[in-house]
């Protein structure tokens, strides 16, 4: 499987390393080349410096041949824009993104964008953990 990942923060870098180790072809995009230091030294995928909301940058990352696209930059709106480019312009089959704001995640979920909201996921886990004390 060929995966393009936008955003090489902790989540992006961890995901990229794991997919690469599992034998998938991975490209990672980040606006800063420093971010690629988070990748494992054994990482074999492509590293692309650029703004992932631009079509030519996505093209350079090989999005036209990608089976999946993941947007995990720090900006909700950037993830939303890039994911919709991946879906609507490049017709990538599987597109997932991260949206911190729960309301925005719900709105774009209703618009057909697959989005994970770490805010609610983590809050639920913390709540679970706390409810174990009694």
């Amino acid at each position, binding site marked *: 499987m060929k995966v393009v990942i936008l955003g090489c923060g902790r989540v992006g870098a961890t995901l990229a390393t794991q997919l690469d180790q599992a034998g998938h072809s991975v490209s990672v995009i980040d606006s800063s080349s420093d971010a690629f230091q988070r990748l494992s030294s054994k990482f074999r995928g492509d590293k692309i410096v650029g703004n992932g*909301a631009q079509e030519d940058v996505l093209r350079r990352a090989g999005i036209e041949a990608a089976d999946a696209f993941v947007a995990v930059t720090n900006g909700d709106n950037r993830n939303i824009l890039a994911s*919709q480019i991946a879906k609507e*312009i490049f017709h990538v089959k599987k597109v997932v993104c991260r949206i911190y704001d729960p309301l925005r995640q719900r709105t774009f979920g209703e618009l057909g964008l697959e989005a994970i909201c770490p805010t609610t996921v983590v809050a639920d886990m913390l709540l679970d953990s706390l409810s174990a004390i009694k």
Partner: protein
Amino acid sequence: MYIIIGGGGDVGYYLTRNLLHQGHEVLLLEKGKERYQSLSDELGQSVLKGDACEARIMDEAGARRADVVIAVTGEDEDNLVICQVAKKRFNVARTIARLNNPKHEVLFQKLGIDVTVSPTKAILSLIESELPGPRFVQLMTLKKAGLEILEMSIPSLSPVAGKPLNQINLPRRCNLVLIIRDSEPLFPTADTVLQANDDIYALVTRDAEEELRAIFGTA
């Protein structure tokens, strides 16, 4: 009309002032604390502090009863989200987005944003139209009709120079509306003979543009 504007930069500020002046009810949303302060010193109740990308703020702003939402921040991704949230959550009838990257135009239209305005593209056309020499400028796009208004000057070696209009095979969906010859306007008829250096104003469908350029030798 009730109009909500997202982003209190220069564009947002002047837009708010103009629309207020025209008698509309306007609310400008600005998230930066200092910028908000200076805007509200001048515009008073017409400014609200908050991020227009957040549905909670838009709800507070009364987005449900807004006739138009205009997103003019400096970031395309923010403008997209403001308009999409306005449409989807609040059923706003008309959304207008400023585009900084003209390449995003197609995407925004696909995603249901009603109108996009690209200052970059507008400035380019304006400058191009002021350059000397043979030219071909897109003056305006009528998006819903799929039409463009073009300005072009006829090059001296153009195949159409010296020919009357009824002997030129124009694309089917194209209309020459005006000719400017030596600073004089001329409304073309079938017998009008085109001359080199005429400035032509044409209404043409997007897909016929290239055909028109080939015929006039401005390709």
